[in-house]
Each structure stands twice: as C-alpha cells, then as structure tokens.
C-alpha cells in the first residue's frame, strides 16, 4: 500500500518537471510517476559509429517505429502527419530540436484580432515572468533586439551563424526579409553545471554532451533536491474518483508489472496532447461515463500539430551539414496576419544547417536525386555537405474533427487501450503551407540553391501535440479553467500542450513550460481554497 501524497504528477517531461520544481517550495509531498526510465547519455546515438542509423530504430522519433518497452503504440493511420514523442524522464525534451521561440502576444487573441477560433483566457504579458523563469531554468541562448518578437533577454549568447547561417542570412537580406538567430536551449557557454555545446550536430536524438536542455538535466535535479519523488517505469492506467466526484488517485503498473494504487489530494496531468486525453478517456466511470473531466465533450478534440512544409536544395559551397546544431535562424516575415496572402494567421520559418551522410543518402535516394549504379558516387559528392533548407511551421487552427480517441483494438503492453488519431489539414493551413513553400523556394533561389525538394507535410512531423484539453472560462467550451483546473473535477489539473486554445506558429515547448509554471504559481496562491 502506497502512502497517500499531496500532489501526484503524471509525466516527467517538459511540463511535469516544471510544475514539480515550482510546487516543491510548498513542502508538500509531491510524487511524479513516469512510464519511462532515466536516460543514460553514454548510450546516446552520437557516442557510436551507428549514430545516424539509430534514428531509424531505437531513436526514431515515432513511438511506433521505436517500440521501446516504455512506448505505447498510436494508431495514426488516419492522419497525414504521424505522432512523434519520447517517453522517459525528460519526455519530448530528450528528443527535440531545442528551437525555443515563444508564442506571440497576438496568438492569445486570435478571435479578437482575426475572427477565427477563440481567444485564450490568459495573455502574453501575464506569462512573461514565467517565460523568463523558464528561460533561466532551461538555459536559453539567443540574441536580444529582434524586431520580430517582443523584447526578451536570453541568458546566453546565440549559436554561431556558421556557413549555413551566413548563406541563409545573405539570401534573406537580398530579399529584404526578416531573419534572426534562433532562441535555443543549447548552452553556448558553460551553464548551471551543463557543459557548453561542442557541435556534435546530432542534437535531436538526445545530446551526449548535455549542452541541450532536457528536463532530466535541468528541472529534475533541482526538483529532487527540493524533495520531489520521481518513480520511473510506472505507467498510469486510470485516474480514479471518489463519491464526491473528486480525484482519489491513480491505478498504475509498476516496474514489475504489478497493479498499484496511489492516493493523492491533487492530481496533475502532464502527458501532453495525446497522452493526457488518452488517460482521461481511459478514466471513464459511472460518475464520468464519457471520460474524466469531459462534460464539455472536448477531451481529445481540437488536436493541433503544426503541419511543417519543408523545402531544401543544394548549393555549390559546403554547408555546416551535420557538424553543428540543426537550429540556426528563424524568420517572422510571414508570422502576423496579412489577409492579402489568402489566409489568416501565419508561420515561422525555421532554418536548418544540413544533415549527415547517411541521412543525405537515404533522403536523396528516395527523392530520385541519387542514382543507383555508375553515377552514384559523383552525384553523392555533389549533394553531401551541400544541403540548405528551411521549414514553415504553420499555425494549425482548432477543428473538432481532428481528435484523439481510444482505439477499439490496439492496446499497449499493459493492455491499456491505445490512442487513435483522426486528423486532416484544414483549408486555411493548407493555403498557408503553399505560401510557405513558394516563399521558401524564393529564399533558396536567392541562395542559388538547385535541385529543390519539398516535403509537405513532413510525414513524421507530429512533434507538437496541442489543444486536446483546452483552457477557458466557459465550461461548455473548455476542459480546464483559466488556471488549469478541471471544470468538472476540482482537484485535477492539466499543465501540458493539451491546454493550448490555438497553436500559434512556433515550436511550443517554451510556452508549454511557461504555462506549467503559471499554473503552479496559481495553485500556490490558492492553496487555502484550491478546491472552491
């Protein structure tokens, strides 16, 4: 029998770690259950000669391909974009590009400004102190003074421009378009016990140097020193409720596969936009027949991905290729609404530096640029180390038919129903992607790139899992209130990407963590009447 805890957090990723750290100063008994394990940087792909090949196996971004014991399967057959994630302490931050923009102020007011979707119940200014706190905790590198975004002061200098960045910058200047070195969570100087970046280049499938911030090496050490307990290999099956309709605790399977019950005064969900609705729907009961916290019927609905339109080409000069972090520059030229473009809202251009030889060979062979036979070697030498590319991260608007439900057949290794994804790209987003492709081609033309290739959408590009338990003041139109508490279950909170009312057009981790810190702060301010 486990002793009851005050706060039980489910998921040790970006948001779970942040909320655990923030709540630790209350001195409450805080427990986090994580289905994966602690990561071991000595085994990360960049430590071995098979570093590129492992991206197709045990370090694939897709849980269906990776298929580690801690992963759960996802039926995403009915989606042109496949879900990618990572399960372990650190969650998706173990396996992200470390591109770290914030949502813009306008992203929180889409209905008021552009007449689409709904406004958020919080605004940018409210979140600024939490963005700043998160920047310090994660360790953000960047450059102040960007006219494309509100003022901010990253604690570390930006990543170098490098050859690729300089080529792209010159192209953008020729066009007169905005660009700026990206904010990233790659440490450019030694920072809070983390060693600086030494350009392993293979950042996305985990950083062996520890220069890329993942919450297993940022928030979690601080949270554990402050007394938070973290149990790994614990997969939660359901949240149980008592006769008063309050969360009583969770049923989970421990490392030995034994069913356990953990009682808690407060339950915090931090499983992101697929895991959180999956767990709520799996927690249906007589009291909550349509799933927990689902009186609105919106749990699992309004899934948003950020469809990526990727465009790349090849230049005569050598690029940085895989010998530097892939994060490079961003452009906000097409971020804010301009109705003359034929769509509302907008996108960020995220520029890359290139890829390694295996990735180049596999992609170019598939695109038909790399022949079999006699011409292979000459063609490969023209392509390898010469790639220059960028992606439009397009805002996805909430549409209820895009959703997470429970698959009637597929189950995980513990017999828990798996999530099913039904998703299609909306018309506004599709027009935005076409615009992004056309303008990316202009940029590559200005860089004198040839052999232009397009991946739109990126098939395994469902990194950003948003909107499936959104926040709002109206219980009929949202799952949680303005500060993350379930409308239906007064001791149940959600702190992850599910909260997003709209997606913005940026990588969301910075905003997810700022929201988690904001909700933790709201909880601390209301401890005396948290359930009123």
């Amino acid at each position, binding site marked *: 029998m486990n002793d009851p805890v005050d706060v039980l957090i489910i998921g040790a990723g970006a948001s779970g770690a942040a909320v655990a750290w923030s709540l630790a100063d209350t001195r409450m008994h805080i427990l986090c259950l994580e289905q994966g394990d602690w990561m071991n940087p000595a085994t990360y792909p960049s430590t071995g000669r098979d570093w*590129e*090949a492992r991206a197709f196996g045990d370090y694939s971004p897709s849980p269906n391909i990776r*298929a580690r014991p801690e992963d759960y399967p996802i039926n995403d057959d009915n989606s042109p974009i496949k879900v990618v994630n990572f399960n372990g302490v650190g969650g998706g931050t173990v396996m992200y590009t470390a591109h770290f923009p914030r949502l813009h102020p306008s992203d929180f007011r889409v209905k008021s400004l552009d007449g689409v979707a709904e406004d958020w119940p919080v605004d940018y200014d409210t979140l600024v102190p939490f963005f700043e706190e998160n920047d310090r905790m994660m360790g953000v590198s960047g450059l102040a003074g960007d*006219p494309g975004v509100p003022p901010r002061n990253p604690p570390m200098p930006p990543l170098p*421009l490098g050859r690729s960045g*300089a080529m792209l910058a010159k192209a953008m200047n020729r066009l007169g378009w905005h660009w700026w070195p990206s904010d990233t969570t790659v440490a450019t100087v030694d920072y809070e016990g983390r060693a600086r970046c030494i350009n392993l280049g293979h950042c996305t499938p985990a950083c062996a*140097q520890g220069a890329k911030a993942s919450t297993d090496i940022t928030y979690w050490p601080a949270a554990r020193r402050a007394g938070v307990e973290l149990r790994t290999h614990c997969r939660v099956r359901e949240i149980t409720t008592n006769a008063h309709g309050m969360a009583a605790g969770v049923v989970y399977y421990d490392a030995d596969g034994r069913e356990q019950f953990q009682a808690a005064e407060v339950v915090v969900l931090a499983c992101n936009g697929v895991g959180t609705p999956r767990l709520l729907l799996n927690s249906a009961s007589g009291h909550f027949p349509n799933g927990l916290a689902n009186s609105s019927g919106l749990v699992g609905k309004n899934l948003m991905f950020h469809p990526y339109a990727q465009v790349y080409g090849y230049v005569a000069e050598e690029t940085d290729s895989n010998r530097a972090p892939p994060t490079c520059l961003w452009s906000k030229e097409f971020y804010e609404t301009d109705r003359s473009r034929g769509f509302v809202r907008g996108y960020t251009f995220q520029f890359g530096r290139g890829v390694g*030889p*295996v990735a180049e060979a596999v992609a170019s062979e598939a695109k038909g640029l790399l022949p079999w036979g006699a011409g292979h070697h000459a063609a490969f030498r023209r392509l390898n180390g010469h790639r220059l590319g960028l992606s439009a991260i397009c805002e996805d608007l909430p549409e209820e038919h895009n959703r997470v439900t429970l698959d009637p057949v597929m189950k995980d290794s513990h017999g828990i129903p798996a999530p099913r994804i039904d998703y299609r790209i909306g018309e506004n987003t599709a027009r935005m992607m076409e615009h992004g492709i056309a303008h990316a081609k202009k940029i590559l033309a200005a860089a004198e790139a040839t052999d232009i290739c397009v991946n739109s959408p990126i098939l395994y590009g469902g990194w950003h899992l948003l909107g499936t338990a959104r926040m709002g003041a109206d219980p009929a139109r949202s799952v949680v209130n303005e500060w993350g508490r379930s409308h239906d279950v007064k001791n149940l909170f959600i702190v992850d990407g599910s909260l997003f009312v709209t997606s913005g057009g940026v990588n969301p981790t910075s905003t997810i963590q700022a929201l988690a810190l904001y909700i933790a702060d709201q909880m601390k301010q209301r401890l005396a009447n948290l359930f009123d």
Partner: protein
Amino acid sequence: MSAYSPLTPAQRDDLRAIAGAIIPASMEFDVPGADDPAIQADIVATLGRDTGLVREALDGLARLAGSPLAGLDPARREAVALELRAKGGAAVATLTRVVLQCYYRDDRVVRSLGLEPRPPYPKGHVLEDGDWSLLDPVRARPPMWRRA
C-alpha cells in the same frame, strides 16, 4: 559450426549482388562497392529489426530475377535492379536504407568524403562564428509583432 545468419546463403548472395548494383566500386573515387565483404558483414550483423522487411525485399528480388542475381549478365542484372527500385514499397526502401547506412559509415568511404571516421562525441566539430554584421539591416527594422 558457422555463426548464425538472419539470411539464407541465397539471400546473402542476392543481397551482395543488389548492394553492388546500388553502389558499385569506383576507381575514380577510390572507394569499394557496397558488395565489399566488410560492408556486407556490417549489413548482415546489424539487420536487427529490419530483418523481416529485408527478407521480403530479397524474396521479391529473387522472383524478379528468376535465378541468382549474381549469375545474370551485367545488362540483365542492371535491368532487374532498376525494376526492383521502380517497384518501390516499404521493403525495398528498407533494403536500400540498410545498404546506404552501412556503406556511408565504412571508414574508407567516410574518409573518401573528407570526413573523419568517428562518432560525433566526444570530439565534436568547430563551427565558424559567421559575419554578424549581416544582421545590421534587420536590426534597423521597426517592430513587426502585433501588440494585443
């Protein structure tokens, strides 16, 4: 007793032949083909989770060729290889990928590309800083983000 192989002798022969058709040796670039014994040994030893799809692709190859690929005359071998590539699908893509990923990590091949045959960690790489004066025209722009 020979070591366990995930492929039959006939499949290994066809794998070697098709790998050589995908990436032949080149005197011009001083590189082996993907049918090189060391590269073949790496492919077979690391098939792992790809074994099933690679077997499927090799079975399809055997059907197309009608006899061992290595035994065909060069023109017929090339025609079969092109037919296999045109056929496409997950199995052929996996076969091609395992050939490419082992070929482009072979020391001789990596050196021929002007790269060091080593993992990224712990040495890393040097990234030049770049010319930050390129930012000057961007710095001069007024704020672009909407106040809300």
